[in-house]
């Protein structure tokens, strides 16, 4: 078994983008995706603090304290980009206008529940816009390591951490596998190169079905 680098997972997820998509990317692994948008494809990045058409990080000269992204980092606006207030930024999320959101996760379970906002007694940060995004985006992809630092699986029969949304995950990409969720069931649809299905089973607590058309993940 070889765990994929996070850049390789980002490269794979980027293949899911489609021409004209409006997408919202979470912090951490998902923020690598813009590096792998196929050339010539028009994809518009959103930031829920009110940006439609988020650009790359600014140069030192371009830094503007009044232009930041939802991770509170300095940002730029692409040509034709738009700024709205928060009410409108979340109306477009809630109203189903966002084609795809890609978020990191602490745990995902076999029912497509996601936990990524709180560790009771240890860490309280808050959900920010994550609950709104998973409830409102047309498609929710979670991208995360398959096991944590203590080598415990993050893919469970049932989340033990407080969840961010119930049955909201459409697809889960990890450093060894790709799962899809449909009608309350979890399917293994891809295995990473140099990883076997048995190795995925051994590292997963959730019960999943092996898809008929299962194949190797394309990370080229």
């Amino acid at each position: 078994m070889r765990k994929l680098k996070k850049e390789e997972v980002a490269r794979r997820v980027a293949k899911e983008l489609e021409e004209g998509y409006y997408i919202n990317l979470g912090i951490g692994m998902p923020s690598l995706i813009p590096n792998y948008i196929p050339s010539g494809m028009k994809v518009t990045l959103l930031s829920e603090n009110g940006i439609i058409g988020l650009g790359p990080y600014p140069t030192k000269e371009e830094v503007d304290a009044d232009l930041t992204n939802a991770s509170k980092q300095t940002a730029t606006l692409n040509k034709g980009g738009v700024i709205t207030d928060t009410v409108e930024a979340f109306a477009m999320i809630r109203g189903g206008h966002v084609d795809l959101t890609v978020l990191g996760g602490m745990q995902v379970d076999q029912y497509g529940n996601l936990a990524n906002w709180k560790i009771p007694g240890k860490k309280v940060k808050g959900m920010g816009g994550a609950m709104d995004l998973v409830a409102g985006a047309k498609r929710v992809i979670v991208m995360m390591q398959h096991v944590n630092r203590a080598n415990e699986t993050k893919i469970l029969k049932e989340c033990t951490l407080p969840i961010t949304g119930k049955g909201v995950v459409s697809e889960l990409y990890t450093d060894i596998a790709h799962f899809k969720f449909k009608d309350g069931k979890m399917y293994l649809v891809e295995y990473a190169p140099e990883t076997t299905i048995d190795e995925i089973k051994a590292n997963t607590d959730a019960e999943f079905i092996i898809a008929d058309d299962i194949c190797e993940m394309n990370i080229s």
Partner: protein
Amino acid sequence: MVKFYNSSEEAIFDIEDGATILVGGFGLTGIPENTLKAVNKKEIKDLTIVSNTAHTDKHGLGPIFEKKQIKKFMASYIGENPIAEKQFFNNEFELELIPQGTIAERLRAKSAGIPAIYLAAGVGTEVSEGKEIRIFNGREYLLETALGGDFALIKAWKADKEGNVVFRKTARNFNPVMASAAKITIVEVEEIVESGELDPDFIHTPSIYVDRIIYGETFEKPIEFLTTRD
């Protein structure tokens, strides 16, 4: 009618113990730096604060947490402020974490005279505990009530002498909706221009929502995470 004040301290003269205050900003971007400093300086406590985040330990709400002026805090995020996190674990204030879009839409409902709304965010999570659930078109929604404040502390870019206000870039964020959801809205601005100088088609917050304006004493505009590509 809009009244212009000479200092932040004067503009917040009637904020007293137990007030509910809406605080504009997203992280440190677009926060009312000057009126927050005035609140911190004044001997007031037991405040209920509604803000997207807890800012940082050094800036914005940080010193207000440090002085223990807050009784209840309603926000979507308190990471980045270690003082607030520590005080929360010591039960020094009541924390209500609310999904960000739910805060925004509850404020909007208040500003538009709508007592409650149904939202899908948080269904099946801790957020749904104790809330009425209704099903529309086969999907579950939570009943969320309108959220307003006694005061709103707002940071804007420019105001004209009528009291119309515009914001700059992503410093807009929660500011317009909070301005329209409070009984008394206090706006600090970087520039005051003559009436007629702002394009009427591009006013973000019209004067009907604004009660007091001050020319902000200093704008430090701290950056939470300076990230550049070079």
